[in-house]
């Protein structure tokens, strides 16, 4: 018995040794696992003051309504853009483009291998379909500029080459279809769109961007889900990005504190409070230009007189308004709608803001025959991104009152005011408004057309000299000529004081520690959300 036990123990020992040897060899022979595969992780929650109507079709609504942010993550544009507002051959669907010698066409060579979220390849047909959609009567494409009148048709040379034919030159065409401008350049999948129709597409859109739409709850939030890999952005940083609609600022701040939001839009006054609470604030400096319009200057109203308009500009202490109404988050500006970014596009850098000189203002009013002043109205409202506008109206009314101009403060919401502007029922009235600071000459000319061409819907002027400058700039075939005309328009507006210009103010976002750095860029109507998702 004892002998059998000894034998058994011996064989068990041999077996144990053998197993040990075997496992060692297995470990030695097995390939090493290597570094773990990188994948998007976590969630980024962005609380926005507005998201428009949340229709995730690029031409369905104006980009100024806040919808451009999520659109930039879902779609690619024909022409890419840099953070500082220039076009780029690196980040768009087109890797190269060329204007014809006669300036009546542009050829675009498309990148191969760009896939939509359903796996189909983006080709010239999709580009043709997307651009043609912009000219549908139902499409909202406010930033097409001169392309709108110049567009003739698109020719498909091959699956990776298109030619845009024009009725007249459009020298800034690549910019109009880039992410530096609006959403006009975003590419939709033709076959999928035509198969499901516009309404179904809006509910379940497909693009070629680094994120797909996971859920879109109108009036609440847009939730996006990352692809594993994107041709431009590589592996996106966050698994999901959620844009929450939170119009009330105190709610957004509470969400940041509780962690319900990682990024929030922040008004200028709240910056010190949020910084003191330990959060980071990133600013798009001088993002918006603020002014008070003097409506319908062609009517027999006091503001039809240049001296009166100059007086109103001199009557207002812009430094005090920027310092106290906008919490010092900005600088006075010479003449709306052209801000400091516009110097890059030809604006006159030598112009200085109108000084605060109420004595001179009274003199000018007397010279114009208003030594006893006059009565007018100034409208008052707030928007989610400009909660200071009602205080601006009060401040402007007070300053004007000191030189004898009795401006009655009239509360009215912005939508109603837009309707009245279109209907031209605001003769001589004053209206605070804002517009993005623009660096590109064609952007400046486009906004000049919108606000100051006598044929435009929202114009406040009817000046043939101004009309001529704008028309010449839109028809120009040389970039240098357009920039020269921008400078001329800038000086003309300044000399004729066609707007009561207040200044340029910053746009701010507060974040928690999830965001270490953020360059908000200089593109129109967006805060560079692609920066947040890049590794």
């Amino acid at each position, binding site marked *: 018995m004892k002998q059998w036990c000894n034998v058994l123990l011996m064989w068990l020992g041999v077996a144990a040794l053998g197993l040990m040897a075997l496992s060692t060899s297995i470990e030695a022979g097995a390939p090493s696992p290597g570094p773990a595969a990188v994948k998007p992780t976590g969630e980024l929650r962005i609380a926005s003051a507005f998201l428009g109507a949340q229709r995730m079709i690029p031409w369905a609504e104006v980009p100024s309504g806040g919808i451009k942010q999520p659109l930039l993550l879902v779609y690619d544009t024909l022409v890419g853009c840099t953070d500082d507002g220039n076009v780029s051959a690196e980040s768009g669907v087109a890797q190269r483009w060329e204007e014809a010698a006669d300036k009546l066409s542009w050829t675009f060579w498309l990148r191969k291998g760009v896939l939509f979220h359903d796996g189909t390849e983006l080709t010239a047909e999709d580009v043709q379909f997307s651009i043609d959609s912009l000219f549908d009567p139902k499409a909202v494409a406010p930033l097409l500029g001169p392309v709108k009148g110049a567009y003739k048709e698109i020719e498909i040379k091959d699956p990776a080459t298109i030619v845009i034919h024009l009725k007249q030159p459009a020298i800034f065409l690549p910019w109009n279809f880039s992410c530096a401008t609006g959403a006009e350049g975003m590419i939709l999948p033709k076959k999928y769109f035509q198969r499901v129709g516009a309404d179904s597409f809006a509910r379940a859109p497909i693009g070629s961007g680094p994120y797909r739409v996971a859920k879109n709850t109108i009036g609440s939030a847009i939730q996006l889900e990352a692809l594993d890999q994107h041709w431009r952005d590589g592996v996106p940083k966050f698994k999901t990005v959620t844009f929450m609609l939170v119009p009330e*600022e*105190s709610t957004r701040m509470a969400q940041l504190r509780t962690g319900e939001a990682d990024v929030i839009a922040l008004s200028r*006054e709240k910056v010190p*409070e949020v910084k003191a609470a330990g959060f980071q604030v990133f600013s798009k400096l001088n993002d918006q230009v603020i002014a008070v319009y003097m409506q319908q200057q062609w009517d027999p109203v006091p503001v039809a007189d240049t001296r009166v308009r100059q007086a109103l500009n001199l009557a207002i*202490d812009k430094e*005090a*308004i920027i*310092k*106290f*109404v906008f919490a010092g988050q900005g600088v006075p500006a010479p003449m709306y709608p052209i801000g400091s970014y516009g110097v890059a596009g030809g604006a006159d850098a030598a112009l200085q803001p109108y000084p605060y000189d109420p004595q001179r203002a009274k003199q000018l009013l007397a010279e114009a025959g208003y030594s006893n002043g006059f009565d007018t109205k100034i409208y*008052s409202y707030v928007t989610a991104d400009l*909660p200071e506008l*009602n*205080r601006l109206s*009060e*401040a402007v*009314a*007070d300053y004007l009152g000191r030189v004898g101009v009795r401006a*009655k*403060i*009239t*509360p009215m919401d912005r939508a109603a005011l837009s309707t009245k502007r279109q209907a031209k029922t605001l003769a001589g009235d004053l209206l605070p408004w804002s517009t993005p600071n623009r660096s590109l000459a064609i952007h400046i000319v486009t906004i000049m057309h919108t606000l100051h061409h006598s044929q435009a819907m929202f114009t406040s002027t009817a000046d043939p000299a101004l009309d001529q400058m704008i028309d010449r700039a839109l028809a120009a075939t040389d970039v240098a000529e357009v920039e020269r005309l921008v400078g001329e328009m800038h000086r003309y507006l300044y000399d004729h004081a066609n707007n009561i210009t207040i200044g340029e103010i910053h746009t701010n976002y507060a974040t928690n520690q999830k965001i270490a750095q953020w360059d908000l860029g200089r593109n129109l109507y967006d805060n560079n959300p692609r920066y947040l998702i890049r590794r």
Partner: protein
Amino acid sequence: MSPLKRFRMGRRWFLLIPLSIITVMITTAVLAEFLTPYSSTEISLANRLRPPFWEQGGSLSHPLGTDPMGRDLLTRMIYGARISLVVAMLALLVGGGIGAALGLIAGYYGGRLDALVMRVADTTMAFPIILFAILFVVVLGGSMVTTVFAVALVLWARYARVIRGEVLSLRERDFVAQARVAGCSSSRIMLIHLFPNILNTLVVLLSLQVGWVIIVEASLSFLGAGIPPPTPTWGSMIAEGRDYIATAWWVSFFPGLAILATVLSFNLFGDWLRDALDPKLRQM
């Protein structure tokens, strides 16, 4: 001293507090220009959001601090008292007058006229008051006149109902029958015989409604549908301070306190007046 006498004396002391507050409010409203060196509307941006004098950074030159436009808060509260009182008095006069007249006529004549007036009154009372007032102001524009009429338009129905009830019981009394027999016209009966007998009820109702009207006016101003800026109203002052609750609490707090004290005082005074004039009205 008997317990009942002690109770009555205690009630008089108790009445002194609300009466004092009402007196202070009326006095400051009437003498506003003499009580403060500041304008209620002129801005002073460099002085914005100064705290009350007992807080760090405050001073006695602005005892209760300043608002977001640099205006003295105490000054605006004083002028705001004037606005609240004027709107309340006018709205009560107009609404109370219309309601009393309609109630008197409906109660006296009865029949279809009574039914029509009461149905219109019921409909008015069923409508959400603030929404009705906002619609009225939005269509006609914000001003003191439209605010007074907006409040009066929802107020008259209450008076009409109560006065109509009083008249229904009074018209069966002997003195009314005697007046008819003597050949008095209906209008003479209503004005000379019935109206003096409903006056107590009307006065009590008016006093009890002052607080309510002040609240409604403040609510309309808070919502931006009342008297437009820069005219100071307590409601709009609270709204101006809404964004500064965490950093400049005084902007909303003191106007809110003023509303609280004033409304409470008028309600207590109205209760006392009701008991003094006609305890039978306790159900109001």
